[in-house]
């Protein structure tokens, strides 16, 4: 008899009555219907849909979110602060008149909280995931002093132009625990790049947290044809101050180590910008440096609600490679720059998320809180 009971449970053997089936046809949850109410820096989602035929519980769309808050202090990094926390290193002058920019990076094992209450045994650069957001200017000489305080061999493999000796692959910059290595190369080409550990096995080293964004700003002097654009990209220039720039790394965590991610996020913490929307001043343009380092899934994406943006694939051009889009795809290690503005918009909460619904619902979604002025 048990066999029957089990068989009756299978999807196919279910003989639904006609009346019952119509109730079953009610709409399923869509992220588009989530309305947000902002309570200080903690948002509670509220349901929007209502229909007499829909059971009352089905209007609770806003319940689709992780529960609780992450202890950012214990983690040692805060997702909101990480957006603008550029690591510019120390700059000295070289005899030939060029600048030498030095970064110091230490690899270490660290247990981090990737979603409220969920700990992940990460491998980190400077104790954070993603690693520090490195920022340099085109043409500078870069020196990255890398120490491995972790329990496994690690490296820093930069996406950029450099010699084979500086590639950060086994035999050229992968160092054992306790060792130190100095990567040296010129900052070029300008653009939005990344670095990651290239020790083997690659997938494990990447997905454990060893990656970061690496931005090289264009030198306006080298791009007279697009000098204004180049100036606006150059961190610290008067033209750049106008922009609201953010570093976003799309990543994910496979907490069961079965080759499928349990948590997706932008800057590590699932739902961090949903619970604490990113304040954006309406009158100033927004520029996002976006990197996809998601392991195990072939692509990730970025979709902006209620707005369109210009996109600079890999950031190596000063004119957009895609104009007026509200969605871009990135494979792993692909990256680019998004530029948009809310100048003509009403103030309010504007969602952004991966447009793979699964990623969004597993944590990779956030909100821009567009306000008149930042106090």
């Amino acid at each position, binding site marked *: *008899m*048990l*066999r*029957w*009971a*089990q*068989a*009756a*449970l*299978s*999807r196919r*053997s*279910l*003989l*639904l*009555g006609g009346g*019952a*089936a119509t*109730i*079953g046809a*009610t709409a*399923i*949850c869509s992220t588009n219907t989530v309305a947000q109410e902002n309570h200080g820096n903690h948002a509670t989602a509220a349901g929007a849909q209502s229909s007499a035929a829909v*059971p*009352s*519980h*089905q*209007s*609770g*769309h806003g*319940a*689709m*979110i*992780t*529960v*609780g808050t992450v202890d950012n202090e214990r983690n040692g990094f805060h997702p909101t602060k990480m957006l603008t926390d550029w690591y510019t290193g120390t700059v000295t002058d070289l005899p030939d008149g060029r600048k030498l920019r030095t970064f110091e990076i230490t690899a270490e094992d660290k247990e981090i909280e990737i*979603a*409220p*209450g*969920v*700990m*992940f045994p990460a491998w980190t650069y400077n104790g954070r995931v993603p690693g520090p957001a490195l920022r340099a200017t085109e043409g500078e000489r870069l020196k990255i002093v890398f120490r491995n305080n972790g329990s496994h061999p690690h490296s820093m493999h930069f996406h950029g132009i450099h010699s084979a000796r500086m590639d950060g692959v086994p035999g050229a910059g992968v160092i054992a625990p306790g060792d130190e290595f100095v990567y040296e190369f010129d900052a070029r080409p300008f653009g939005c790049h990344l670095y990651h550990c290239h020790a083997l096995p690659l997938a494990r080293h990447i997905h454990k947290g060893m990656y970061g964004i690496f931005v090289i700003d264009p030198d306006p002097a080298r791009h007279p044809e697009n000098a204004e654009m180049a100036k606006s990209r150059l961190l610290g220039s008067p033209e750049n101050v106008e922009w609201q720039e953010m570093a976003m790394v799309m990543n994910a*965590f496979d*907490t*069961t180590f079965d080759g499928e991610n*349990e948590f997706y996020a932008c800057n590590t913490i*699932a*739902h961090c910008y949903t619970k604490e929307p990113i304040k954006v001043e309406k009158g100033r343009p927004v520029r996002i440096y976006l990197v996809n380092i998601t392991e195990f899934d072939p692509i990730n994406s970025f979709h902006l609600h209620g707005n369109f943006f210009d996109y600079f694939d890999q950031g190596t051009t000063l004119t957009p490679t895609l104009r007026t889009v509200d969605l871009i795809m990135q494979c792993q290690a692909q990256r680019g720059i998004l530029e948009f503005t809310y100048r003509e918009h009403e103030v309010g909460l504007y969602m952004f998320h991966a447009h793979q619904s*699964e990623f969004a*619902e*597993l*944590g990779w979604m956030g909100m821009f809180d567009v306000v008149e002025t930042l106090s």
Partner: protein
Amino acid sequence: MNENPRNFRPVSTVAPTPRHLLWLVLPLIVLIAAVLWLLQSDPLRGFNNGAPPVENLTIERTVLDENGLRLKVRGGGSEPMTIAQVQVDAAYWQFTQEPAGTIPRGDTAWVAIPFPWVLGEAHKVTFVTNTGATFDHEIPVAVPTPKVSGNALVSQALLGAFVGILPVAIGLLCYPALRGAGRNTMTFLLAMTVGLLAFLFVDTIQEALEFATASAAIFQGSVMVILTAVASFLMLVAIGRRQGSPTGLALAAYIALGIGLHNFGEGLAIGAAFAAGAAGLGTFLVLGFTLHNITEGIGIAAPLLKVRPKLVHFLGLTLLAGGPAVFGIWLGSLAVAPQWTAIALAIGAGAIAQVILEVTGLLARSDSDRASYTQVLTPAALSGIAAGLAFMYATAMLVKI
């Protein structure tokens, strides 16, 4: 002669005094000292290799209603468990846990998720613990969990009557026709009873073990099932033989009890299927069950052929054998935890084993007072057992999907 070990007394000849009991303090002191030492100085820390604790979570009950999903979970890890997040269909959902906090080993908690489930479709709930481990729970077909209501109770009782009471009654109605049976027919009928009981025994044990697998590891499912069945068997044999081996009406009552306990377990399974979405229960299946269970009535009637029972006896036997199906469906539809169904089925299996023993005994004594188990090998008996097994197997085909 004293060298012969058989002449040694098995126990000490020293008269027990309260002073001897004082010696019990010694092992107790050693145990307490060992526990304290283990807790205080942690001498086994060398085994701590940095591996995360073993985690285990069993989902025992699933309730779907207008407020969403409620699941009863039982922690079974090496340390208390923490449910950090809950996914439904690969999306994180808000949830509340009652009681909140960590779930100690062996304890249960209710997790409520305001999830808009879709009628008739499948959902998957995933519990993510604080270490990132995940535990999946399938809801194969989402239907509202039955609530206790007059209407539901009546329709469930009707179903129970169809699969439990009606077939037994039909079987017992064969009684007048069987009364004129000769010795060989009598042997055949008793043997057929043994055959059908043997089928039920195997079926029940298998079901019990499957429910045991679904229950939390802490209950040691299969050991629990076997021990419960053996205990139930021994207890019923002991009770049944207080005044010699049961025969006649008494034996019929034991058969009815065994079948009744089996039907109770089956009722639980049907009820659980209801609770979890058995909208596929068609008329054909119900008729299949009725047919399948008719032999049970004939089996109960077999030991009565030489006595003259009253009508009320038949009524009582019918209710004893078939009635528990109704109670089983009632209980099961309220979603009982799998370990209880396993125990109920195991008790039923023990009871069936008992009546197999007694009916076989009766079969062996069928032409003399001296039991001769070679009777079981006569053509009438062998064909009876074969017929019982074959009938049960064939009619089971109607209800196995």
